[in-house]
C-alpha cells in the first residue's frame, strides 16, 4: 500500500527543505520526495495543493490520565485528540494512578497504546517513587521498559540532593530529566501569578521567582552532573534568561513552552474562568514576549501542550478550588499558526522545527524528519482553514479549554502515522 501526497509545500527543517514537492510513501516509510513523482500502480493520491506538508508533530508533554483517571482521558481518547490536532506522537507524563514509577505501568501504557492508540505514545517515567520526592523510582527498569524521559511533572522534586542523584543515575540511559520547576515553598496555596491581577482579585499568587529559583537549581545540577535537563513549560522571562545563559556555557539544557503561555497573560484570570488556571500560571505580557523571542531564537527548543484533561466538575466552580491545567492537543497548532505565525512573530519553518525536528532530537525519538527511509509520520497543515474552537466537538474526553469560541485561521488538515491516515479534516 502506498500513498502519494501531491503538490504540497513541503517544509522539512531537518533536511532544510521548503519547496512544493510530492511525497511518496511506501510500506509506512518515506520512499521519495521530489517534483512530479510518477504515481505507482495502486497508489492513493492525496492532493495537498495549498497545504503544508511537515514531519509529524511530536507533543512531548501530555497527560493521558490512564491508568487511574479514565474519567478525564484515556490512551484512546487522548491519542485521538492528538491525531485531530495534527500530532503523530505524544509523550505522556507519569502522574497516573498508579504512578508510572515501575516497568509494569510502562508496559501497560505501551500495550494500551499499541491496541487503542491513534498515534505513537512514548511514556515518561517518574523520577521518584509515587512522585513523593523521597526515593528514586526504578529508573533503569523504566528506561528498559521504554520510558523516553523521567519526570515527576505536576510536582517538583524539592530535594536537591535526590535530584542530583537522579541526574547521575540516569546518565547512561540517554533520556533526559524533565524538570517541573516550581519551588513549592514559594508557590504554596497559589492559584495564579503573583502580580497586579492577583492583588486586584485577591487570589493567592505565586511569584515568577518560584519557577526561576528552581530552573537555576536544575541548570546548576545539570552542570554539576553533566546530565541533560529539560525544563518543562517555561513561563517566565527570568527562566528564559537563565536557560539562555546556561546553554551559552555549554550546559546540556533544553526547554519547552506551551501554547497558552505564548498567547495568554494573567489578565485572562480576571474572567474568573477556572480554565485560565494552570501551573505554571499565566504570566505577564513581558514574559510572553520573552517566551516568543526564546522560541524564535532556539533558547526554548520546542512547543509542548501540557495537555491536562479534567472533568467539567473539576473546572467549573470556585477558581481557587478548581483543578490546575487545560487541554491543548486540539487547539495548539491552530492557535500558534493564527497568533504567532500569521502576525509574523515566528517563522512558519521555525514553528514546524520546534514541533518536529527538535523534540525528536532532544528525546532521541524516531521521526522529526521527512528524509527517505524515515517512518512516514506526517502532519499536513491547511494555512487557510477557518475554525471556531468548539470544545463540544473535541476528541478528548475533557473540554477544559479557555479558547472556546476563538476564531482561528490555519490548522491541521491531515495526520499520518507510519503512512496511514489517522485523521483528515
Amino acid at each position, binding site marked *: 500500500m502506498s500513498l502519494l501526497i501531491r503538490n504540497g509545500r513541503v517544509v522539512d527543517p531537518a533536511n532544510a527543505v521548503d519547496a512544493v514537492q510530492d511525497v511518496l510513501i511506501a510500506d509506512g516509510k518515506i520512499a521519495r520526495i521530489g517534483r512530479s513523482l510518477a504515481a505507482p500502480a495502486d497508489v492513493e493520491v492525496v492532493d495537498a495543493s495549498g497545504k503544508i506538508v511537515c514531519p509529524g508533530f511530536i507533543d512531548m508533554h501530555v497527560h493521558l490520565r490512564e491508568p487511574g483517571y479514565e474519567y478525564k482521558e484515556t490512551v484512546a481518547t487522548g491519542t485521538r485528540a492528538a491525531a485531530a490536532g495534527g500530532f503523530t506522537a505524544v509523550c505522556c507524563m507519569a502522574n497516573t494512578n498508579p504512578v508510572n514509577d515501575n516497568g509494569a505501568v510502562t508496559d501497560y501504557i505501551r500495550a494500551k497504546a499499541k491496541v487503542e492508540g491513534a498515534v505513537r505514545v512514548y511514556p515518561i517515567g517518574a523520577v521518584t517513587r509515587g512522585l513523593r520526592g523521597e526515593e528514586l523510582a526504578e529508573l533503569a527498569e523504566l528506561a528498559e521498559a521504554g520510558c523516553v524521559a523521567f519526570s515527576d511533572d505536576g510536582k517538583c522534586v524539592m530535594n536537591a540532593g535526590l535530584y542530583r542523584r537522579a541526574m547521575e543515575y540516569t546518565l547512561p540511559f540517554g533520556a533526559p530529566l524533565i524538570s517541573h520547576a516550581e519551588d513549592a515553598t514559594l508557590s504554596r496555596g497559589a492559584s495564579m501569578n*503573583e502580580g*497586579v491581577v492577583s*492583588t486586584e482579585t*485577591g*487570589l493567592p*499568587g505565586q511569584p515568577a521567582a518560584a519557577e526561576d529559583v528552581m530552573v537555576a537549581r536544575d541548570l546548576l545540577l545539570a552542570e554539576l552532573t553533566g546530565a541533560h535537563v529539560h525544563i518543562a513549560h517555561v513561563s517566565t522571562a527570568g527562566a528564559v534568561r537563565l536557560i539562555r545563559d546556561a546553554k551559552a556555557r555549554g550546559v546540556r539544557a533544553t526547554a519547552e513552552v506551551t501554547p497558552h503561555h505564548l498567547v495568554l497573560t494573567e489578565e485572562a484570570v480576571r474572567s474568573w474562568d477556572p480554565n485560565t488556571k494552570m501551573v505554571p500560571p499565566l504570566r505577564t505580557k513581558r514574559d510572553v514576549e520573552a517566551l516568543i523571542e526564546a522560541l524564535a531564537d532556539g533558547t526554548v527548543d520546542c512547543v509542548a501542550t501540557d495537555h491536562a484533561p479534567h472533568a467539567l466538575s473539576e473546572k*467549573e*466552580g470556585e*477558581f*481557587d478550588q478548581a483543578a490546575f491545567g487545560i487541554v491543548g492537543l486540539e487547539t495548539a497548532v491552530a492557535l500558534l499558526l493564527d497568533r504567532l505565525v500569521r502576525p509574523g512573530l515566528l517563522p512558519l519553518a521555525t514553528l514546524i522545527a520546534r514541533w518536529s525536528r527538535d523534540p525528536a532530537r532532544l528525546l532521541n525519538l524516531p521521526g522529526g524528519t521527512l528524509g527517505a527511509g524515515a517512518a512516514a509520520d506526517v502532519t499536513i497543515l491547511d494555512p487557510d482553514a477557518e475554525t471556531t474552537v468548539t470544545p463540544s466537538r473535541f476528541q478528548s474526553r475533557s473540554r477544559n479549554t479557555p479558547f472556546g469560541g476563538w476564531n482561528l485561521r490555519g490548522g491541521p488538515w491531515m495526520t499520518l502515522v507510519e503512512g496511514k491516515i489517522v485523521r483528515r479534516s
Partner: protein
Amino acid sequence: MSWTRKDLLAMRELEAGEIVLLVDTAASLQEIATRDIKKVPALRGKTVVNLFYESSTRTRTSFEIAGKWLSADVINFSASGSSTSKGESFVDTAKNIAAMSPDVVVVRHSSAGAAALLARELPCSIVNAGDGAHEHPTQALLDLLTIREKKGHFEGLHVAIVGDIAHSRVARSNIHGMRKLGMTVTVAGPPTLIPPFVQELGAKVSYRLEDAIGDVDVIMMLRLQQERMTAGLIPSVREYSRYWGLTLDKLARHARPDVLIMHPGPVNRGVELSPEVADGPYSVILDQVSRGVAVRMGVLLLLAGRKGGDGG
C-alpha cells in the same frame, strides 16, 4: 442616576455616581432604625436568601435585619467547609436555591470570584457579602456612609488603611470606592502583609504606622488573623501589636485631633486596637455597624426594585 445592574459584586466595577446613589439611598433609609415600628412594605413579597459559606454573625445579621425591615422574606442558608469536598458543589447548591425563585441571593464565600460565578449562573440578583480576599462592597459602602456623615463630604479626604492589606477584601473594596470618590488612600502594614503592585490600584504605601496616621482624616484598622503567623508572615502577635497596634499614646503623638477610627470588626482588642482606642471618642466602630443595616437596606431595595412592577 438610577440603578441598572442586576448584581452588586465589586466596588471596582462601579462608577462614582453609582456609589453615591447607593450611599444616598442608604442615608435616606437610616431613620427607619429610629422608628417605633421598624418596618416598611418596600420589599413585601420579595425573597432574599442569605447564602453564607463562611461563618459571619455580623454581616449575616445585618443583611437579615435589613431585609426584614423592608418586609422581604429572608431565608438563611449556612454551609460550612469547602463545597467541593462535601458532595454537592457550590454551583449545584446555588442552582437549587435559584430554582426556588428568590429575588436576591446574598453570598459570602471564602473563594475570590464566588459571587461573580453565581451572578453568571443565576438569573436573580446577587449581592457579594465578601468573596475571599477579593471584595466586600457593602462594607465599603457602610464605611463611606459613616465617613460622609462625620466629615460631610468625600472629595479630598485622606484615609489610612492599616494592617493585613494582602488578605483583606475590605481594603480592596475601600481602595476602589475611595479612589473613585476623590479620596486619598494610604495602606500601611509590614511589607509581608502589603500585596505587590497595590500602588497600581491607586493606593500609597507606608511601612511605618507613625507615618501612615500622621496627616489623615480617617484611620481604618484591619483585623489581624492569627493564621498569618503560622504562614510566616509576621513573627508574633506581640511584635505586631507593638509596632502596628493603635494606642491612645500613638494617636495623641501622631494623629490629628479630629481623626476618625474605624474597624470592620470583629476587633482583636489589644492587638490592632487598644481597648481605650476602640471605645474612645475617636472611634466610630459602632456607627459603622448601624450604618451597615441602612446600606444593606439600600442595596436590597435598589436590586430587588430594579425590575418594574415591584411592590415597593
